[in-house]
């Protein structure tokens, strides 16, 4: 695969741009693979990538029902941070954040990672204490965060109204090395790198059944026929329950709709990400100038990739309080994704009751930021057959044993 560089652009300029290749191939299916990953979203592709890069397993197929990165990977608000309270979460999200820093160089593909900094506003006394605790926990975990006062919040983001009528800003948890990245490019970069290692990425191929023999996985039935495999990784986010049912087990997961929206593009007005969890909305400005806005998930099961209007209203209402200048902006687009929520709002990276079948799901409303770390941990588990240190705490058995990684309480909201 030709490298992308300034020289390549110059070279192609002299030969009518005829030398570019497709970023990833569209191969035909083989009948047997060492490993099949179901789901070509960020997490699935990252899993395949680290299987090849870290463990030398390249006879891999990534199969996808729709198109590559067309699910939640292309539907999130692209925020990357790792300021989590619980140790296992901080470890995996920090791993992911650090991998994002070098991702463009690793792939030779620009994912536009922008470490612009993330502020989580503290707007009640309770939240101030909560974030102080998180800041202390983070310094023990080796995650660089800092609790800052309202003046510093105003300095970092001048468009904030810190004397809000209901919830004045009392401070904030500041992670200077958090930020955003181009979500599509993350999926495309992984796909290009996987294809370059000789992996097959098969789009528009729906898994219809999981075939097993004597309690071990044999392969998957798909809309393009049967494919055999030694190991199977299920990385399908909102549809995890559907795949688990095919594989013969149940999950502690429910699928609900989470929405986001963007405004019309305006001139640069904020160069940080701001999350306001008490009023529940978060906002950043994209490189195109759109204000990217996200908020709460619906409370009921939903597979439709669209959510309820009142949640948009709630989110926008909350953000107008925090950023009065956006009150006259027109909203341009709105969309939804199906997120898989667990009881403790922490993900599942686990072996399953079916031998050689592994699952990565339950990222709920916060999966994008975790993509590289999640792929790293899942690939290690698939390659070695046992979860490694990053994944160990995220097993399915934590529900039975009561070892929750309770980020729902730590964050106060879905995160």
């Amino acid at each position: 695969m030709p490298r992308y560089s300034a020289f390549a652009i110059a070279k192609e300029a002299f030969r009518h741009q005829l030398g570019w290749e497709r970023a990833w191939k569209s191969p035909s299916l083989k009948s047997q693979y060492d490993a099949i990953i179901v789901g070509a979203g960020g997490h699935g592709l990252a899993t395949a990538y680290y299987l090849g890069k870290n463990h030398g397993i390249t006879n891999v197929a990534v199969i996808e029902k729709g198109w590559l990165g067309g699910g939640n990977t292309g539907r999130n608000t692209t925020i990357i941070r790792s300021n989590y309270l619980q140790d296992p979460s901080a470890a995996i999200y920090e791993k992911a954040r650090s991998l994002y820093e070098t991702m463009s160089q690793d792939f030779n593909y620009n994912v536009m990672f922008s470490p612009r900094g993330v502020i989580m506003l503290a707007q009640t006394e309770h939240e101030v204490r909560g974030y102080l605790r998180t800041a202390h926990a983070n310094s023990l975990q080796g995650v660089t965060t800092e609790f800052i006062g309202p003046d510093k919040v105003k300095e970092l983001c001048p468009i904030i109204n810190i004397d809000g009528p209901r919830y004045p800003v009392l401070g904030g948890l500041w992670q200077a090395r958090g930020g955003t990245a181009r979500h599509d490019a993350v999926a495309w970069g992984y796909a290009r790198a996987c294809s370059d290692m000789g992996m097959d990425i098969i789009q528009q191929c729906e898994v219809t059944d999981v075939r097993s023999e004597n309690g071990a996985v044999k392969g998957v039935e798909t809309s393009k026929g049967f494919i055999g495999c030694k190991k199977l990784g299920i990385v399908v986010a909102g549809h995890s329950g559907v795949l688990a049912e095919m594989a013969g087990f149940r999950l502690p997961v429910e699928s609900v709709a989470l929405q986001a929206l963007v405004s019309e593009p305006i001139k640069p007005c904020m160069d940080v990400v701001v999350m306001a969890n008490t009023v529940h909305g978060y906002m950043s400005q994209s490189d195109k100038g759109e204000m990217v806005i996200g908020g709460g998930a619906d409370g009921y099961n939903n597979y439709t990739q669209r959510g309820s209007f009142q949640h948009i209203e709630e989110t926008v209402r909350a953000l107008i309080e925090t950023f009065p200048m956006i009150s006259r902006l027109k909203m341009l687009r709105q969309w939804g994704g199906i997120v898989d929520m667990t009881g403790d709002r922490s993900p599942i990276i686990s072996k399953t009751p079916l031998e050689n079948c592994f699952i990565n799901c339950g990222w709920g409303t916060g999966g994008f930021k975790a993509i590289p770390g999640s792929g790293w941990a899942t690939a290690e588990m698939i390659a070695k057959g046992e979860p490694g240190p990053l994944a160990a705490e995220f097993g399915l058995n934590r529900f039975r044993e009561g070892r929750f990684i309770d980020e729902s309480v730590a964050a106060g909201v879905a995160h």
Partner: protein
Amino acid sequence: MLLLTCPCCGIAAEETELHPGGEAHLKRFGPDSSDADFEAYLFQRENAKGVHFERWRHVNGCGKWFLAARCTVSLEVFGTYPAQTLAPPAEIIAKIKAKRPDWSPA
């Protein structure tokens, strides 16, 4: 917007009047049950893609709990019925079967 008729007060309530309460007809397992049953009762959910029975509370109305049968793919509502029901009533099952001939109760 989702509209559900509350079987307690008869009002066709909008989504903003209601609060979702998760899967209906869960079988309770108490302290004497096996770990697997207790775990399944507490955490594991049907999460059906299609027909789903669920609990709702008419929170900004009469305040009562009730149950609903709804499709999670089309968001079509098949009907609502009182919370004091251990299994989906026959008329609801009939309504679902009329619209989803392939569906069978779990």
